[in-house]
């Protein structure tokens, strides 16, 4: 008999965006994984089909929404399907093929009780071969995808070259049940709720800070006829997103890593400090800043290998005076983030709900303009057999941003870091991203060079 489950908090986050914005496009995630080598597509097809069997999350389907728009999920036991092979090798170069795949990434899974995951095998230009996978984010997050793709290549090299068979993956359904049970633990829920409520009790209503300065909040105040308004409008119509990537050189990256190591700081917290200091600088020294930070809730072996959508965002709110020195500010953020980690089983929608209740926050307004994901995991497939074989792996934006500016920071093969800014073109331009990146770097490198310097001085000097 088929079992139906409610969505977890992380899945609900994506589901709510789909409902709010009226399109599944906001929940799309797509990636191409390929190697510059000949592939046996018959075998690759078999391995993809095996992967669908191994990764339970690929077989998740959703019921028709009820009157409130809620859906339930279930896992089909078997999902036999043909895997199409597309030949793009005649295209001029990889960049052209990427452009076409970018179009595929905009496509939506529309309907109830349908597969929300699609694999396509690819012959690509420049001798690359591999596959493109397009999924709904309620099924999997980026860490889950990296693990799944690695598992798939391991299956391939096992059958092709006799390498070790991949280790068993944790059962998605078992982990899902555990997560739902944890969320239903009343004692845990009360502790988590208290943590988030205490923050509002102590600090009061948050205050919006925009990448473009205080004029955005001022405009929202005029629009709502409320000079005291502390939240600003979210774009609901034009969701088109553009992406601007910046590469930080290996040497400079190493300096940031060394600073983190020497001061027992995590890179996420250093990056949060960089963003919040920029926001403070462009918002007349505002001290109360909130940034939404995505947490990939994967800690246990089961959580790492069960696939699923475990990434969830929480508001990281800190009030830091300009007299605070850089290092102390970093520790303040770290302290806050550590406490958030302890309460990350909570549904972030409930935090917003509480704020709406307390402060009558107008609908479709937000206290945050910036969202951060730090991905310590490389996208590159780790496989002994692939060795030095060149790979082409690329994430494709779904083209519909629910967030004004979403920064993904990841490590690159050369030892550097990639800063990928996804921004809504309705309000932001590439120049805004240039400024943000430029000042973030100035802040971070000034701060790590002189950690005793106050945040106020850093803002003045850069």
């Amino acid at each position: 008999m088929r079992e139906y489950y409610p969505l977890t908090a992380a899945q609900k986050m994506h589901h709510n965006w789909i409902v709010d914005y009226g399109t599944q496009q906001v929940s799309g995630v797509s990636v191409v994984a390929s190697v510059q080598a000949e592939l046996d597509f018959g075998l690759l097809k078999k391995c993809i089909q095996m992967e669908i069997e191994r990764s339970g999350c690929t077989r998740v389907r959703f019921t028709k929404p009820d009157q409130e728009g809620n859906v339930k999920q279930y896992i089909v036991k078997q999902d036999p399907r043909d895997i199409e092979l597309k030949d793009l090798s005649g295209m001029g170069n990889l960049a052209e093929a990427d452009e076409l795949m970018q179009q595929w990434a905009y496509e939506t899974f529309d309907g109830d009780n349908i597969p929300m995951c699609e694999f396509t095998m690819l012959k690509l230009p420049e001798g690359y071969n591999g596959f493109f996978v397009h999924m709904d984010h309620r099924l999997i997050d980026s860490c889950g995808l990296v693990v799944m793709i690695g598992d798939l290549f391991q299956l391939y090299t096992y059958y092709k070259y006799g390498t070790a068979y991949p280790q068993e993956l944790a059962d998605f359904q078992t982990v899902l049940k555990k997560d739902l049970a944890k969320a239903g633990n009343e004692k845990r829920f009360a502790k988590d709720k208290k943590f988030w409520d205490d923050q509002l009790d102590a600090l009061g209503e948050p205050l919006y800070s925009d990448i473009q300065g205080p004029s955005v909040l001022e405009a929202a105040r005029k629009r709502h006829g409320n000079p005291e308004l502390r939240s600003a409008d979210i774009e609901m119509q034009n969701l088109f997103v553009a992406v601007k990537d910046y590469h930080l050189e290996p040497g400079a990256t190493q300096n940031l890593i060394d600073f983190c190591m020497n001061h027992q700081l995590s890179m996420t917290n250093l990056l949060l400090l960089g963003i919040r200091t920029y926001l403070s600088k462009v918002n007349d020294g505002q001290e109360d800043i909130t940034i939404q930070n995505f947490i990939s809730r994967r800690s246990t072996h089961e959580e790492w290998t069960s696939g699923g959508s475990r990434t969830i965002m929480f508001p990281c709110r800190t009030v830091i005076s300009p007299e605070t020195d850089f290092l102390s500010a970093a520790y303040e953020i770290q302290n806050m983030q550590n406490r958030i980690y302890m309460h990350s089983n909570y549904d972030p929608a409930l935090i917003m709900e509480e704020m709406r209740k307390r402060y009558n926050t107008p609908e479709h307004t937000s206290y945050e303009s910036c969202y951060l994901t730090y991905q310590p995991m490389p996208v590159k497939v780790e496989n002994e057999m692939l060795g030095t074989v060149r790979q082409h792996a690329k994430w494709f934006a779904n083209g519909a941003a629910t967030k004004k500016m979403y920064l993904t920071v990841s490590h690159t093969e050369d030892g550097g870091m990639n800063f990928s800014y996804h921004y809504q073109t309705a309000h932001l331009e590439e120049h805004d991203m240039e400024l943000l990146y430029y000042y973030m770097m100035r802040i971070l490198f000034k701060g790590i060079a002189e950690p005793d310097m106050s945040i106020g001085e850093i803002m003045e000097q850069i």
Partner: protein
Amino acid sequence: MSQEMEFKNIVAQYSKVAPEEMTNEMRFREDLGFSSLDFMSFLGELEDTFDIELEENEVMKIVTLGEALQLLENLQ
């Protein structure tokens, strides 16, 4: 199962080190490979499993397995 063994089995869910190889001197971050998120998630797991209340300021000081075990014993 002893409380210590149960504790180590939970630790093992987050680490590559097997329970029988764990010593009280092992540090969560450096020796067992815990990230900040792992450590805080682990503490939540301890609270739920052993039905205890951890003081957030206290737990931030924990470095080794032995210190965590000691705290667990003190709270029961």
